[in-house]
């Protein structure tokens, strides 16, 4: 019998090392995990909060020293429990799962919305020192929810890559949606690739803009996830499983799933429901 690879990704116990508040609703948690420390930007992990739930999270950072961090927005029972947890609290980790962003080194446009900034910060850390030129567009509802501004400024500043921001309430940067900024940027400049992560409706809009400008897009999607290994079917979009075939999808793949992309997902019963 062939080696059963999935058995090499068992749940590991770890403890929270540090907790940092990033915004009124987002905290980052750092812990040690040798396997996830090898993750590439775009991959995700499953985090078990014992006795509560197990949730999928984009990897925010992974270091050679074995440290891994994730950004968690308080949205439900599991994330609430995690927000209350302090350093020393036990967690279970599985992963890293899924594919990662292709590292295109030419002219790069990065578009991040809300907590979707996490995988793009990870990508920027690895990619910015090697890429030719670029622009980073960061959007959020309000100023206090613009995530990782300082870290982004530091990373992008070294390579003179502009960071432009938008907020829906106008409290920082341009007033409106970050996709409006993307439209303006694309009108002025050509890119080899656009990387995006954020609410799916935002990604859909970025996809349409990318299509109009004949620019390739790679974007990371989010879905209800249970098994994380491509079996349960909870996270499907079209013929793809977000956990096993994604979470990063290309323009070519988005064209194949146009009816669902940005429009619908599946609820816990498997029923198709509109995206909020």
């Amino acid at each position, binding site marked *: 019998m*062939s080696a059963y690879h999935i058995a090499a990704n068992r749940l590991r116990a770890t403890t929270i090392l540090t907790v940092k508040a990033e915004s009124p609703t987002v905290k980052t948690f750092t812990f040690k995990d040798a396997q996830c420390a090898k993750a590439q930007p775009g991959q995700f992990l499953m985090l*078990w909060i014992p006795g509560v739930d197990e949730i999928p999270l984009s990897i925010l950072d992974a270091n050679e020293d074995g440290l891994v961090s994730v950004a968690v927005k308080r949205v439900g029972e599991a994330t609430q429990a995690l927000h209350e947890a302090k350093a020393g609290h036990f967690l279970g980790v599985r992963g890293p799962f899924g594919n990662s962003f292709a590292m295109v080194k030419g002219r790069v446009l990065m578009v991040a919305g809300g907590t979707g900034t996490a995988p793009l910060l990870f990508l920027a850390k690895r990619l910015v020192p090697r890429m030719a030129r670029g622009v980073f567009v960061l959007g959020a509802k309000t100023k206090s929810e613009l995530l990782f501004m300082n870290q982004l400024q530091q990373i992008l500043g070294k390579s003179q890559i502009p960071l432009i921001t938008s907020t829906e309430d106008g409290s920082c940067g341009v007033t409106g949606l970050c996709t409006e900024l993307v439209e303006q940027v694309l009108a002025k400049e050509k890119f080899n690739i656009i990387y995006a992560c954020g609410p799916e409706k935002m990604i859909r809009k970025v996809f349409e803009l990318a299509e109009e400008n004949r620019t390739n897009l790679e974007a990371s999607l989010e879905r209800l996830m249970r098994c994380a290994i491509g079996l349960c079917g909870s996270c499907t979009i079209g013929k793809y499983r977000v956990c096993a075939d994604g979470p990063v999808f290309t323009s070519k793949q988005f064209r194949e799933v146009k009816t669902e992309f940005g429009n619908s997902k599946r609820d816990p*019963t498997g029923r198709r429901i509109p995206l909020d």
Partner: protein
Amino acid sequence: MTVRDVQHFFGHNTQKDLSLISSDASVFHGELGFEALGSASDICFVRRKQCFNNEYVIVTEKMLAGMGLKESGLTINLAGLQLANPTVLASGILGYSTETLERLVKGGAGAVVTKSIGLKPRKGYANPTVVQASCGLINAMGLPNPGIDEYVEEFRQARDILNVPLIMSVYGYSAEEYATIAKKAAAAGADAVELNVSCPHVKDTGSEIGQCPEALAEVVRKVRASVSKPVFVKLSPNITSIADIAEVAVKAGADGLTIMNTVKAMAIDVETAMPILGNRVGGLSGPAIKPIALRCVYDVFERVKVPIMGCGGIVDWRDAVEFLLVGASAVQIGTAISLKGPNVFRGVTLGIKRYLEIKHFEKVEEIVGLSHRS
């Protein structure tokens, strides 16, 4: 080959389509790579409407021979269902959407079983719902499903697109419920139903029915009486004698059996001293349970005459052949998809074909139960 032969070979579903086929069917360059079509007289395989942009895919005998499909002897008759090969998608795996089922059929599945569908929508359990054990997975999904009324919409779409037998897995809390759902499944075009009387982790259904001979017999009888399609019963290994219970199911009218469902199991985290699964207990699948499943199929084959679908830990062709040798007419594959991807079915089928060639068998059915001769 006549039209009647085709209908006989591929079941009732082709009937409507066949009447629409004219002798001047156009050339189709499909993903199967066929270049030209023969005349209508030697048609022996017809795909359903809407398969590819409303075109019909017509495969002549010559083409089938060219593909090695017909000559390979891999086709099987499973209680009246005609399968192009003996690999079947197991219930519970990726069974919601038409697109994912389509992908598994393209990956070579000879038939597919849907997720278990109940009368009402069910969310399933909180995560963790899947835990990796040493040589397999423990799951307690909790039968998440949209409910039969919602699901038939999706299922009809799948029925229109897919050209393999579609088996709907059903579960209920009473014999009446099983029968009601099975009826709706058949009306939506299910080629057969598989009764889940073996889920090890949901109260008042599944194995609680499959472990009680009286309850099981009543469920099978009621379903048998209310549908004209083949009825398969998926049994649990969590029982003293699976052969005894198999006999009960067959006497009550089961046309075929699926042996077996997962083995009741659990996982514990030593740091927190807590059960890991949200539901605490679940069912073990994967290579760890293959020897148990083999023994179960072996025992059941000795006692009943209906076809058996072997299920439990099949990852490659060798596993599949082992199941055929102990008495399974087909094999169901689920957990292995996480390891080998959706094309695992094709790989297993090719391996079986190669085995038949090397051992000088003409048809897959010749090796079914071969281990019982000694």
